Structures are given as structure tokens and as C-alpha cells.
């Protein structure tokens, strides 16, 4: 998708970190690193490189901070009015929720909802199997639906 990679990279950073300032830092460091490699005659081979690099930078950033306590999330079947519930959310609420998810669910959801990569590309970027990806997305949807029901109940 020519011309869409860097905006999507920034959104990816926002979804993974859940914080605009951190996303900005990771985004800029990643592009700077790519420029450095290019200047040394070894430019990034493809767009996936940016997402892999940004992902590891986000992880490194998260390692430095206190980890939130892992809780068992409730799940719920996708509601017919989920669309209306989601429309009442702000993008940063979604980012906060995704960034709090465990790996690989967090990265899988972030890449998937960019709506830019096929499932094979996501598998390649995250180096996971199809079953793991499918489970991460399925569980992520149902957990997010349960959270929606609590945060923005259907009217």
C-alpha cells in the first residue's frame, strides 16, 4: 500500500503503547534507524521491517516500566449492537485496551485492525502460527466485547 506505511506505523505504535508520547518516540526512533541503515547502504528490505522494529522498541519501552497486574478477562459473545458501542469510543480508549493485552494478542490485534496486512503477513511479522493468530483475534474480540458491555453498555 504505497503512501500508507508510515501513518499506519504510527497508529501501530499508538495501539501497542497506548500512549501518544511513547508512540511518537518509538515511531521516530524506528524511522531514524531506517534512515541510518539506508545511509550505510543497507536500507530496510521491506515495510515489514518497520513494524518488526517498532514492535521490539515498544516491548523494550514496556520492559522499563512497571508491568500492570495480569487479570483474567471476562469474555462475551459479539453483540449485534457492538458497532454502536464502538462508535461511542475514543481512539485512545481502544489503544489503552489493546496495549494492556498480553502478547501476542496485543501485536496481533494492532496489526490486524490496521487493515493493511493479510493474515499471512501478520503471521510472518509476528512469527506465529495461524492457529495462534486466530485464537488471539477471537479471544481479543470476545474480551473487548465484555469490556464494551461494561464501559459503554448497549442502549
Amino acid at each position, binding site marked *: 500500500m504505497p503512501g500508507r506505511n508510515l501513518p499506519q506505523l*504510527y497508529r501501530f505504535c499508538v495501539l501497542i503503547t497506548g500512549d501518544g508520547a511513547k508512540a511518537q518516540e518509538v515511531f*521516530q526512533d524506528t524511522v531514524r534507524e531506517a534512515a541510518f541503515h*539506508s545511509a550505510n547502504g543497507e536500507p*530496510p528490505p521491506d515495510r515489514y*521491517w518497520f513494524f518488526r522494529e517498532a514492535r521490539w522498541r515498544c516491548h523494550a519501552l514496556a520492559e522499563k516500566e512497571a508491568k500492570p497486574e495480569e487479570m483474567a478477562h471476562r469474555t462475551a459473545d459479539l*453483540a449485534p449492537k457492538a458497532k454502536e458501542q464502538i462508535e461511542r469510543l475514543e481512539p485512545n480508549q481502544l489503544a489503552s485496551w489493546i496495549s494492556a493485552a498480553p502478547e501476542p494478542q496485543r501485536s496481533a490485534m494492532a496489526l490486524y485492525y490496521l*487493515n493493511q496486512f493479510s493474515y499471512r503477513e501478520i503471521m510472518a511479522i509476528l512469527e506465529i502460527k495461524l492457529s495462534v493468530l486466530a485464537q488471539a483475534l477471537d479471544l481479543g474480540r470476545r474480551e473487548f466485547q465484555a469490556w464494551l458491555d461494561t464501559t459503554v453498555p448497549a442502549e
Partner: protein
Amino acid sequence: MRKGLRTLAACAPVDHDLAKERRMRTAIARAKNSDAFAAQQNFDRAITKLVRATDVPPTIAEWFANEKLAEGTKRSIFRTVFHPAILATAFALAVIAVIAWLKFDEQVHAFPGLSVAKHLLAQASTTRIVDLPPVQAEAGAMGDFFLMKHRLNHYDVPEEFAQFLTTGARVYDDDEAGRVGQIAVSEKRMQYFLFPARRDSKSGQPEEFSGWRTLEQDGWSGAVRSKNGVIFMAVLRGPEKELAPYLKVPPSH
């Protein structure tokens, strides 16, 4: 729906243009009529829309000028060819090809009695021709000489080498070759060897081959032919090509 397709449907893209693979398109087509899949797609579409609504601050938008960088670069053919992994693979394939060729070449040159021929070729290189009992005759007549004097039947010199004059000849027993007739001729200081062909262990018949075969070892060359259970080998010092003019029919390789 089968489990595999159900798994794929869980990863079905919101934008169906991303479903380039046939299996994914099949999974979507199968799941299309189910309520659960419709709910999933509505849910995913709404979240995708929310993600797209994420604000991009102007300080970040300035960096989008580097978009070309993110499209990736194609590795040039030169860089690809000289990549260490490619070089190592090419080298390994070359070694395998050389070994395979040597094995193939060895098989092509192989003939019954090859090991004995090599053994006698080594003997030829250490033989002092002047030490052979002198016999002066036409090489073609040596068949009668071996038959009359040593009772060796079919120890005949082929017509390609029959016209040369002999300088010496002897018959001796060799551990590997059996009863060997050795002839020295004046032409290029060649030596002829005649020895019994190996016999098949089951049928007892001599293992023969058709036409001339050549071999080379330590700077010496031999042209070998089998007939009537006896193998004839003409030997000279030098490369195989020096024997070629004497052979009416070129060696069979």
C-alpha cells in the same frame, strides 16, 4: 464448516481485497451466511474505523516525507549473487556437481578388468624393456608364438597394433592378472599386455566388453580391448590422445 476454514475465517480481513489467497476466499464464502461471521465483520469494521480515526500529530506527519524509505528496496542482482548465503550454497552445489561428475565419469570409463588393467599399467611403468627376452617379429605373429611356445590360446594382438616390430616378449604369472603375455615393440616404446578376462562367478563365462576402452594413470596410458576371453592392452608413456591414432574406432567414451 471445517476447522481449518473456521480458523481462517477468524482472521478474515475487513477489506476483502486483502483476501488474495484462494483458501481465505473459500473460508469467507463459506462463512458469509452465518450470523456469527456477520457480527465479527461488523465488529471488525467498526474497530478498523476507530483505528483510522487515530489522530496523527503534525510533528509526526512531517516524518511521512520518508514514506519512500518504508516501501523497501529491492536487492540488486549483484548484491543478491554475492550474498554469503547464496555464495555458500553455490559453492556447495558446485562441489556436489564435481563429485557427481567424477563418479559418473568413473562409471562411464569402468569396464570388466579395469582394476587388473591399472595394475599392469603400473607394472609397465617399472618394466625395463631391455630386460625382456628378445623376440624380433611382427606383433601380429605373436599369437602363434604364445600358442606354440606357451600354449596360450587367443593371445592375439589386434590388427590395429599388429604391424609393429617386437623387440622382446615374455610370459609370467601375476597374482592379480593370472597368466600374462607381455610384448615390447619398437613403435613409441609401446608395451602390449595380454591376460585372461575375469570370469563370471555364476556362469563361468568371461566378462567381456565391446570396442576399445582407455585409461590413464601416473602419466601412462592404455587402450584395452577384450576378445575371446582374453584382454589386450597397449600401453605407452604419455596422454591418451597419443594412442588415439592407432585405434580404428575411437574409444567408447
